[in-house]
């Protein structure tokens, strides 16, 4: 049996999913943080490493505060428009104000990512050993704005380098007890993946998308390294997914959702997680029974849901 795998097919999440979805709808989405907490618990508890499951220790209550703050921001953003219209502001004044606010929102993204990472990793545990994210907001913010600016003035050409810098910073600050991680991906390699995509996507009538997804998945996995400073060892993660397996995953997921009118979501979620986790291979010489506890708890829920909304996935 594999050392690292996802243990469920989706069936144990089916009932909690229906019940929580209904509660979220009936509560006009106020219940959503609790639904999300249960979903994360389900995902984490079914990720098995060397026979032990992961734990998500976060609660709906903690995430609720962050969610409310975000909800208020969104209501202000859209509601403000109606109020300004009612106050007979000219359209130009409102447009100016909103462009201004949109720029402010762009600057808020690194803040959301940062607090989301801090919260999520602080609440992640395996055999009682805490994970943690030790990135500094100021450093991350500067990095994000600097490379974001390059991306903007090069009309997006710089994006692969931007993405690698961000990934390098985030991965480099994730702790798992005394272990930490490293990301070695180079912008130029990522750039080549994009160039191939642009050249081949039309010739292959779009079918190249599956190979493109495979390339991205392999790029991020194969460039991630676990570092054990006490032993002086580094362990490289590997992945060998194929374009065909991506095709199979996406098409069957699509069919499940269509034919169950969305009620098959738990199975789709489990299939996605299984694909993600089962395809990451940990080297045999990496042993897990000596990891020392080093991280302490951290409590601040802001950003947890912003991460969800921005759809920035991390394991």
């Amino acid at each position, binding site marked *: 049996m594999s050392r690292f795998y996802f243990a*469920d097919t989706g069936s*144990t*999440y089916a*009932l*909690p999913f*229906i*019940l929580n979805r*209904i509660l979220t*709808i*009936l509560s006009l989405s106020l219940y959503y943080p609790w639904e999300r907490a249960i979903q994360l*618990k*389900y995902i984490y*508890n*079914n990720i098995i490493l060397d*026979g*032990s*499951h992961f*734990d998500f220790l976060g609660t709906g209550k903690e995430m609720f505060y962050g969610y409310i703050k975000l909800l208020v921001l969104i209501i202000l953003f859209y509601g403000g428009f109606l109020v300004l219209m009612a106050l007979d502001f000219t359209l130009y004044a409102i447009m100016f104000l909103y462009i201004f606010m949109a720029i402010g929102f762009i600057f808020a993204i690194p803040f959301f990512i940062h607090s989301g990472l801090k919260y999520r990793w602080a609440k992640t545990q*395996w*055999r*009682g*050993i805490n994970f943690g994210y030790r990135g500094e907001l100021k450093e991350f913010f500067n990095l994000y704005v600097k490379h974001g600016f390059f991306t903007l003035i090069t009309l997006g050409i710089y994006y692969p380098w931007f993405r690698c810098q961000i990934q390098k910073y985030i991965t480099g600050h994730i702790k798992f*007890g005394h272990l930490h991680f490293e990301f070695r991906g180079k912008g130029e390699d990522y750039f080549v993946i994009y160039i191939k995509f642009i050249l081949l996507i039309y010739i292959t009538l779009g079918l190249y998308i599956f190979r493109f997804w495979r390339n991205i998945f392999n790029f991020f996995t194969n460039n991630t390294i676990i570092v054990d400073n006490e032993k002086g060892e580094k362990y490289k993660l590997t992945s060998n997914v194929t374009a065909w397996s991506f095709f199979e995953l996406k098409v069957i997921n*699509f069919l499940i*959702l*269509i034919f169950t*009118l*969305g009620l098959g*979501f738990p199975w789709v979620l489990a299939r996605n997680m299984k694909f993600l986790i089962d395809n990451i291979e940990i080297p045999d010489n990496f042993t*897990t*029974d*000596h*990891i*020392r*506890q080093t991280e302490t708890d951290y409590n601040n829920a802001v950003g947890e849901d912003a991460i969800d909304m921005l759809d920035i996935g991390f394991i």
Partner: protein
Amino acid sequence: MAKGKYFDGLTSSEHEATINPSLQRLGIIISDPYGRPKFLDWDLEDIEIEYNEFAKRVKLENKTEPRKRIELELSEFLSIQDQLPKNLRLGIRSNGLRKIWLFGAISLFIIGFLIFSYFVMLPYFAEKVAINFPQSYERKLGLSVFESMESDLDIDSTKSHDLQLFFNGLGYDESKNVQVFYSKTNDINAFAIPGGFIVVNEGLINSMNNYKELQGVLAHEFIHIKHRHSLRILFRSLSSYLAISLVFGDINGILAILIQNSNELRSLSYSRTMETEADINGAELMVEKGFDPHGMIELMETLKSHTPNIENEVFKYLATHPDLDLRINNLEKVYSNQAKTLNADSLISKSIFLNLKNDR
């Protein structure tokens, strides 16, 4: 005695553990890395219990730092549960089967409630809103619809005037200020726009055999306006759309579009019942005003003779106007024995009709 796994909170090493509860304490035997037994002793006061429903494990955590824990399979824990104080027992939550029944019952109830709200409450409220929608707004809405269509309709103002006279002579108009238009379009059709606009096509009038059919058409369209059918459809589909996006909004865009389209079919069948309503109530109105309701039936016969025969079941379902035979049957059931009453106005109506039809 129960077997589980012990984690010391300092490292990730996993120890096989045997636990033995007594009155005040929890005795734990673990084996150290060299395989030698080691005895631990936890104060029950320090212990917190948590059942993990997805991992199906019970976690006993010792709150004193560093936080240590023992994880047990549910069945192992249940075998020693009775020896523990009440606050360290799993309540009703541990009863897996009962819990699933409870979940099932609650979700069934809620799903039932949702279905009830979607199919009963939602239409009810949409109806209420449509009925209470201010008439002046309805008029504005209709006017803008009419204006946007006007150039395509090719309205004949002289004939529209005659048609208006014909309509006024029927006495259908109560508080609604209905305007009737004659369109020089060849389609065999007539339609009503909210706010009180009726358009009758030249094609339809020319295919009619007598003025009673025109009375029927106007009665039918007048009922559409009087009962605010368009507004009801509008609010009905708006509210369904809202409910659907609330339920499936964040799952899949394509899914939403698919469901929306299937909802479109429902809206169509909704307007089929409205068509029937317009037929029956229209005929009733004709009787009430002293006209011959057979005009309505003759109108259907005329329409039928100009409609290509559609035998296909699929098309029958998709058609907005229910099968004409069915409509004729519905009307004949009620009016086959009705005397052919004639109104004093009918001669004037007849002459206007002939004028409209022949003056090409």
